[in-house]
């Protein structure tokens, strides 16, 4: 009977060692956002990024251009894409299973752009005499004037991209209002064929923008 406590104690120590090792590993995984049980590993992401086709890489560039329009502080698409790549590779943005890489990267870039806007607003509020507004701003109940202006300019640029194409502009307006394809057609008395043709023109203008940039 005397040996039992020793055995128990050994077992407890062994379990504790194991738990300690496990918790350490979990801590590392958590701190790196590196949890293979819920997502891909950073090694997977690195490999998947390297394996992207030329067209997928241009898709990635176009998505970066799209999300980074009008960002404050002169932040451009390369900065946003670079930051997104760093975050997915260091594991702080884990790649969830069953989510296509480009959809995931697009979401990461969108979130990074939102972060830049939030940071810019916080800096403005902290540097000025608007400390009282800081709490309201962090709650995001009031729109940020700089962001609103930049968004209005970006919308104007998108409209400019499709200038002269009445149907495409109708579709743009509908998409901005969150309408479905059916609602856009009904609202603008567009036939399905007119809609599809205009959407194809719109897509090509968009791809051109992604490939060529602002060069006309």
């Amino acid at each position: 009977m005397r040996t039992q406590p020793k055995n128990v104690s050994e077992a407890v120590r062994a379990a504790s060692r194991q738990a300690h090792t496990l918790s350490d590993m979990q801590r590392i995984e958590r701190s790196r956002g590196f949890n293979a049980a819920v997502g891909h590993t950073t090694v997977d992401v690195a490999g998947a990024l390297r394996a992207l086709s030329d067209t997928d890489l241009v898709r990635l560039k176009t998505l970066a251009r799209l999300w980074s329009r009008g960002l404050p502080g002169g932040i451009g698409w390369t900065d946003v894409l670079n930051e997104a790549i760093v975050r997915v590779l260091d594991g702080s943005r884990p790649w969830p299973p069953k989510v296509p890489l480009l959809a995931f990267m697009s979401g990461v870039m969108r979130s990074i752009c939102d972060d830049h806007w939030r940071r810019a607003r916080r800096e403005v509020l902290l540097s000025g005499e608007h400390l009282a507004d800081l709490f309201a701003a962090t709650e995001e109940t009031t729109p940020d004037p700089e962001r609103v202006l930049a968004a209005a300019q970006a919308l104007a640029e998108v409209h400019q991209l499709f200038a002269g194409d009445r149907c495409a502009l109708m579709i743009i307006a509908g998409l901005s209002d969150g309408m479905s394809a059916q609602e856009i057609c009904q609202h603008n008395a567009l036939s399905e064929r007119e809609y599809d043709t205009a959407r194809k023109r719109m897509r090509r203008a968009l791809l051109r923008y992604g490939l060529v940039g602002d060069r006309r």
Partner: protein
Amino acid sequence: MKGWHPHIDLARLSMALAEEVRGASEDEWQLVSDRSGYSIAGAAHEVRELIAAAAGDQSERPPIEAACLAALARQH
């Protein structure tokens, strides 16, 4: 315009346009490339370099961290 939230409109529009970008076929990209005179390979090269540079920064992490990540990667 009171009640107009361009940043919300832009977010909705950007989501829709991002889907167009992702969903465009290889043929459509090729067509745009042919018409514009800008090569897909050239644009892709720029992004590939960016990825390589960012990945290079990551590989400069401390050896212990790198070893932990490598061990975890082997487990899965």
